[in-house]
């Protein structure tokens, strides 16, 4: 099995085609880029050429949204084969997916839907992760979900569920700190306690993103919109996590109302500064 991460322990940014000119024109000093492999599951043309160029200049992480690992169904063989083709061709520094489902009976749903957390679904998830890792010949990372509704089926606490999935399958964890904050708020658990219990040796990557409050005045549910700068309490949780587990490759996600490249680059620089501070804190704590 490959090591947990080949990404640099710096801030990376989600790649957007609209930033291609800024990125390829000046080659900014951002540590790495993330792409969704689904957007590149085509035979040829300018899209793949752009990915080729990106991979020639930066480490790239392939973060899937379509495998439906938590769907309790056999994985879609065509989708898996398409993923393997991309992984084999571009040799990304990292491959990751979500603890979620996004397809049911052959119909892709274009969203990350909540997987019930039970003994049975855990076993199914572990089987799915194993299938992927065996098929592509790599260790992957799995990301903690964003939750909006409490599912009555749930019988295993989230962190226990995802850590157990990683321990049994040998995959690593991608901790989305924004998701932790949103889910804790929406479902009413303690985000700090979650962050403090994350098994650091299993974490291969961290995600940060902006969120929004729902317009519904009777329920201030938070929505994972990836449409804004990272919120202060999410930075605080990030600092708390990296102060304990150390530097990790950290992604700034911004997928809606995408700003100009300079704004995104500033957010990445800010994440790098937080990562630097975390290392200093660790030295201080050790001395």
């Amino acid at each position, binding site marked *: 099995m490959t090591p947990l991460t080949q990404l640099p322990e710096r801030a990376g940014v989600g790649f957007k085609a609209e930033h291609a000119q800024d990125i390829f024109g000046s080659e900014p000093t951002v540590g790495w880029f993330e792409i969704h*492999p*689904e*957007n*590149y*599951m*085509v*035979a*040829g*043309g*300018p*899209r*793949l*050429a752009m990915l080729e160029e990106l991979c020639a200049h930066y480490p790239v992480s392939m973060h899937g949204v*379509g*495998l*439906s690992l938590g*769907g*309790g*169904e056999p994985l*879609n063989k*065509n*989708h898996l084969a*398409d993923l393997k083709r991309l992984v084999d061709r571009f040799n990304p520094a990292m491959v990751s997916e979500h603890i979620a*489902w*996004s*397809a*049911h*009976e*052959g*119909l*892709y*749903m*274009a*969203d990350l*839907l*909540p997987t*019930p957390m*039970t003994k*049975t*679904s855990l076993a*199914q998830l572990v089987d799915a992760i194993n299938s992927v890792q065996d098929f592509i010949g790599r260790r992957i990372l799995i990301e903690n979900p964003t939750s*909006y*509704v*409490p*599912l*009555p*089926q749930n019988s295993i606490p989230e962190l226990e569920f995802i850590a157990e999935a990683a321990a049994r399958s040998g995959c690593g964890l991608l901790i989305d700190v924004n998701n932790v904050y949103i889910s804790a708020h*929406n479902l009413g658990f303690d985000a700090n306690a979650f962050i403090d219990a994350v098994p650091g040796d299993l974490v291969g990557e961290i995600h940060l993103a902006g969120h929004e409050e*729902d317009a*519904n005045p009777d*329920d201030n*549910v938070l*929505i994972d919109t990836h449409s804004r700068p990272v919120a202060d309490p999410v930075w605080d949780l990030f600092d708390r996590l990296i102060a304990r587990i150390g530097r990790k490759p950290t992604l700034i996600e911004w997928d809606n109302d995408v700003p100009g490249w300079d704004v995104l680059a500033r957010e990445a620089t800010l994440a790098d500064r937080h990562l630097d501070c975390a290392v200093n804190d660790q030295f201080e704590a050790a001395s």
Partner: protein
Amino acid sequence: MTELKAFYDGFSDALRSPEPDVVPSSVTDGYAHRFAIYRNNVHRGLYDALGAAYPTVRKLVGDGFFDQLAQGFVQSETTRAGSLALYGAGFAEFLASHPVRDRLPYLPDIARLERARLEVSTSEDAKPLLAEELGGLEDQLEAMTLRAHPACQVVASEYPVFAIWNAQNPVNGKETGKTSIVQRAETVLVTRPYMQVEMRVMTHGQAAFFAALTRDGLSLGDACAHALEADAAFDVMASFAAFLTIGAFDARVNIPRGNGHDDA
């Protein structure tokens, strides 16, 4: 296992339901508006993906009506791939059987043109046959057969689909002016010799020539005769040069050798 299956079935049925207020039994009272977040993500995501694949159709009908069309299309789908990179196959057929056709009869063909553009844009990369590769082969040309480039499609319509598409997609964002669109049939050749999608309207003779050559597998000589039969004004040399320039043929071609031609 059965309890989980019931969960996934119920959740996805509610997400797919045309009734926006349907909530699965796994979502407890008081959380219906939160389930709506998932529902909105699913539908918005699919409508936007369809709109990205058919931007000109969306412009022609407006965002609001496009969402209504998208809702009907999404509802009609029985399979959907986990990648939306080529999403929207069959949208033209959906539009052809939709009442919108009474008002905008050319809309299904605009969708076919946009689908061709998307497929051409994402199909296999290959070298186009260049004019210079045929230099010195004048004697063999007549017997030669040619294949269409893998990134090449033909869209034939009873309507001026290229003119309509062009009016909605001005170059560099500049309005091309309110040029009136002449009602006529257009057959559009869509190619991508390298990384840029190109379109040309073919004359009747050119369309007959190209179909005879690449679809029916006739030799260049026979395809010319066929084209001249269909259109006496067909200009062989100018047309063949134009097809080569736009990258319509695959460079992987068996060039007949012999008759004093020296292999270089």
